C-alpha cells in the first residue's frame, strides 16, 4: 500500500477503493460526503442569548453549548469555539444555506460560506475507534466522547473539526480542502490493517 500511496500525486485525493486485507466486511468505511453546504457562524459580542432564541424560533434547534452538535432536519450546528459555530446543510449548496442562516440570525452573526473551504469525511465500521486511536489526540472512548460531542483538534498536524454523528459509532471530520489529500493518506495508512473501504473520492 505504501507503494500505491507513493505513486498518487501528493495533491490528489486517495482514489476510492478497498485498502488492506479483504475481510468479509470492511473494518472501516470512509466516505467523502458531497452535497453538503458549510458555513461558519460568528456571533457578535453579547448576542449569544439572542442568537440562541433565534435558533430555536427560526430554525427549531437548541444552540449547542460548548463543543457539541445540534441538529434539526437537514441542518446541523457544531460548536467550534466561544460564539463560533460551523453550520452544515445536507442536500443544499452554500447560497441557500447562507440565505437560511441570514434570515434566521440577521445582523446578530457574521456568516461565511465554507462549502469550498472544507471537505467532510465520514467514518463508520467496527474498527473505526481502533483506527482513530492512531490519529486523534483526544480520547474518543464512549464514556467521555459521545454522539453529539465535537472537538477542534489536530490529525496528522492538520487542523480538523471532529464530531460524533451517531452512537454506532459514526464520526465526521471537517478538513480544510487542500489538506484533505494528506488527511486521507494518514487515514488510509492507519485503517488499512483493518480493511478500509473508501468512497466518494472518485479516481483521486
Amino acid at each position, binding site marked *: 500500500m505504501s507503494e500505491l500511496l507513493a505513486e498518487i500525486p501528493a495533491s490528489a485525493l486517495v482514489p476510492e477503493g478497498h485498502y488492506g486485507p479483504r475481510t468479509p466486511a470492511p473494518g472501516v468505511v470512509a466516505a467523502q460526503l458531497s452535497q453538503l453546504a458549510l458555513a461558519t457562524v460568528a456571533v457578535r459580542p453579547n448576542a449569544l442569548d439572542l442568537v440562541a432564541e433565534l435558533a430555536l424560533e427560526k430554525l427549531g434547534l437548541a444552540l449547542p453549548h460548548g463543543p457539541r452538535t445540534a441538529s434539526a432536519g437537514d441542518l446541523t450546528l457544531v460548536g467550534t*469555539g466561544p460564539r463560533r459555530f460551523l453550520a452544515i446543510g445536507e442536500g443544499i449548496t452554500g447560497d441557500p444555506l447562507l440565505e437560511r442562516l441570514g434570515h434566521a440570525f440577521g445582523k446578530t452573526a457574521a456568516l461565511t460560506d465554507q462549502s469550498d473551504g472544507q471537505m467532510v469525511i465520514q467514518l463508520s465500521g467496527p474498527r473505526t475507534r481502533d483506527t482513530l486511536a492512531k490519529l486523534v489526540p483526544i480520547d474518543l472512548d464512549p464514556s467521555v466522547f459521545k454522539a453529539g460531542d465535537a472537538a*477542534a483538534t489536530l490529525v496528522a498536524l492538520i487542523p480538523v473539526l471532529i464530531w460524533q454523528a451517531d452512537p454506532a459509532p459514526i464520526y465526521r471530520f471537517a478538513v480544510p480542502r487542500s489538506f484533505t489529500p494528506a488527511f486521507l493518506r494518514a487515514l488510509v495508512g492507519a485503517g488499512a490493517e483493518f480493511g478500509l473501504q473508501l468512497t466518494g473520492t472518485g479516481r483521486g
Partner: protein
Amino acid sequence: MRIPCPYCGLRDAHEFSYLGDATVSRPAPDMPDAQEAFFHYVYLRENPAGAHEELWYHAAGCRQWLVVSRDTRTHEISGASFARAPKADASHAEVKP
C-alpha cells in the same frame, strides 16, 4: 503537559502556542514616565520559581487566548481561563436581528 482549556477541555500542550508572561499590562502612552514604563513592559520579566501566569493560544482548538497558571518548577497547572473576559454589555442594544 496538558492544559485545561475552558472551552475544549484537557488538551495536549502541542495544540497551543506560548506567548509568555500574562501579568504585565500595557502602560498608558501619555503618562509622564511612559518611556520608562514601556521599557519595563517590553523588556523586563520576572523569572519566578513557582506559581506563574502565562498566555497560551489554543491554535489547534477553539482559537482563544488563555491565561494559564503554571508552576515553573513542576509544570503543574492549577487553572486556565479566557484571557479576554466578556466585555460589558455595551453593544447589545445595537445588535438586532
